[in-house]
């Protein structure tokens, strides 16, 4: 609660703007639908894998040699640790970035289209503050989305298999706090990647008043990046591609955690974040409202 008694304040407090923004984001039917959908995915994954391979659920992963996809999924059904992270890994390929793009699209392009951005600009909210509030809104939404997947993933695995299944891909078993720490690490790392996507979405969002343009651009970008990432001939380009860093999330499940790729991916995301927000800011201050 802030106390505001000055007679002629020139700007509304940022905390109040952020609260209004969050209320708006989480009152949106669309936001709730997306969060609900994301929450259901780990449940479906867990049940489908348990049904497909009821025996595999009790055996640890076949070790590092089993390869990422197959080994991860085979292990996922049985483990409270693995299912949330497997679900994060899968949704990070497409669904989570799209959710981040949606939030970024609504934040500026959507608000421009409905004419509501003008209301805040006329209050006035300076354009720098506006971007700050919008970025915090997108950041909060993506954090909630990633957390949602981890929580429902963990709960699903817990219900299906009980709590004594905290083994890693390397075959070791973790304590409960250690496992929770790794899930939190995964959520944090994925959220940072989503902030990078969200920042790029905000940058595109500042240039258009059609939210669909933002969604299509981000979707197209992810597809192009994935294709480029799969071409060995372009390996010199791979360090620049955000999507190439996303495989590193599986490292959270190894013991000990090989942190080089995770740190590299985090730094890459930070670069995208800074560049995206800079472009968004540059566009927003020069834009006619």
């Amino acid at each position: 609660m802030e106390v505001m008694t000055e007679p002629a304040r020139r700007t509304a407090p940022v905390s109040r703007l952020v609260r209004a923004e969050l209320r708006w984001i989480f009152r949106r039917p669309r936001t709730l639908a997306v969060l609900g959908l994301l929450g259901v995915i780990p449940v479906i994954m867990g049940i489908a894998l348990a049904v497909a391979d009821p025996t595999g659920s009790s055996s640890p992963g076949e070790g590092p040699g089993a390869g990422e996809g197959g080994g991860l999924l085979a292990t996922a059904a049985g483990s409270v640790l693995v299912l949330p992270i497997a679900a994060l890994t899968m949704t990070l390929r497409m669904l989570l970035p799209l959710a981040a793009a949606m939030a970024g699209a609504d934040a500026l392009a959507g608000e421009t289209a409905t004419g509501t951005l003008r209301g805040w600009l006329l209050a006035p909210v300076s354009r720098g503050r506006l971007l700050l509030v919008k970025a915090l809104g997108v950041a909060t939404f993506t954090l909630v989305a990633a957390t949602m997947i981890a929580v429902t993933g963990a709960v699903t695995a817990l219900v299906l298999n009980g709590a004594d299944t905290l083994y890693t891909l390397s075959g070791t078993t973790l304590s409960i706090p250690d496992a929770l720490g790794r899930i939190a690490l995964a959520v944090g790392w994925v959220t940072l990647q989503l902030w990078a996507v969200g920042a790029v979405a905000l940058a595109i969002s500042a240039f258009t008043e059609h939210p669909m343009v933002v969604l299509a651009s981000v979707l197209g970008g992810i597809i192009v990046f994935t294709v480029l990432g799969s071409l060995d001939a372009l390996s010199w380009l791979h360090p620049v591609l955000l999507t190439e860093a996303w495989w590193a999330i599986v490292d959270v499940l190894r013991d000990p955690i090989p942190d080089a790729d995770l740190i590299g991916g985090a730094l890459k995301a930070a670069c995208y974040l800074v560049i995206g927000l800079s472009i968004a800011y540059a566009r927003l201050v020069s834009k006619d409202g």
Partner: protein
Amino acid sequence: MTAQAESAVAGPSPEGPATAASTRGLRKTYGRTVAVEHVDLDVPEGAVLGMLGPNGSGKTTTIRMLLGLVQPTDGDVQLLGHPMPDRAAEALPDVGALVEGPGFHPFLSGRENLLRLAAAEPRLTSGRIPAAVDEALERVGLTRAGGRRYRGYSLGMKQRLGLAAALLVPRRLVMLDEPTNGLDPAGTREIRSVIADLHRDGVTVLVSSHLLAEVEATCTHVAVMNEGTLVAQGDLTELLESESPALEVSTTDSAAAVTALRAAHLSARPTPDGVRAELTRATAPDVVATLVDAGVPVYEARRSRTGLEDLFARLTQDSEEAPTWRS
């Protein structure tokens, strides 16, 4: 309503006759299209200024530049004594605006939409916000519909909610772009009474409209725009009278009246029920005195006033393509 213009703390008063808003040499181009050019607009403090002009004449662009939403290509804008758009933070808290139709979120109720806007109002403390929103809703007659989703609002209700947003805080200047769009006659009357209330409280109002009768009924001043330039501005009565200074006199003996006036070197011509005397070289009392001296029976004498419609037509129809005014 609320605590009155104590909030009039910001802004040094500009020199000369007080203007709430003014532009000098204002110009805006989009690519090769010139939207607004050479606009020197003055909105006197306390006035209700009606901005008239055909669609596409630059009214909205001018208003958006006054509000700092659009960066002028050239020229200066002063709003409540502050240069815009650079000092928007100083000027805008005291300005309420409804521009380019109301913009609200369809999935939120009218009240929630206003709460969201109120959160950004610098002049409102957090504790005052709910009361300010309720007062604004009441002022535009939306108290009962406030809880309903904006999606289900009629055009008139949307317009009123936009007006409520402009009136969330006691303002020094209120700008309304086509506020009566989509309103039925009762709604139009309500807007008119809101404008009259604001005027009585000393608030300057700038209202753009295509309804000439509307402007004539509510405004003290007018500014007429055509093809991006300001073709006339000033006090409404003065503008109308400067158009054709003449006196219409009813008499049974128009022939004698014309003769008497022409003998006094006043130009006059007979009309069906009397005579029309030009007031270019004489005042109305001169004309009446001349007629009475000549023994002409005078039943009635009145200044002939051009309607705003005639003035508007003359000012805007000089262009090659006469603007259509019917819609």
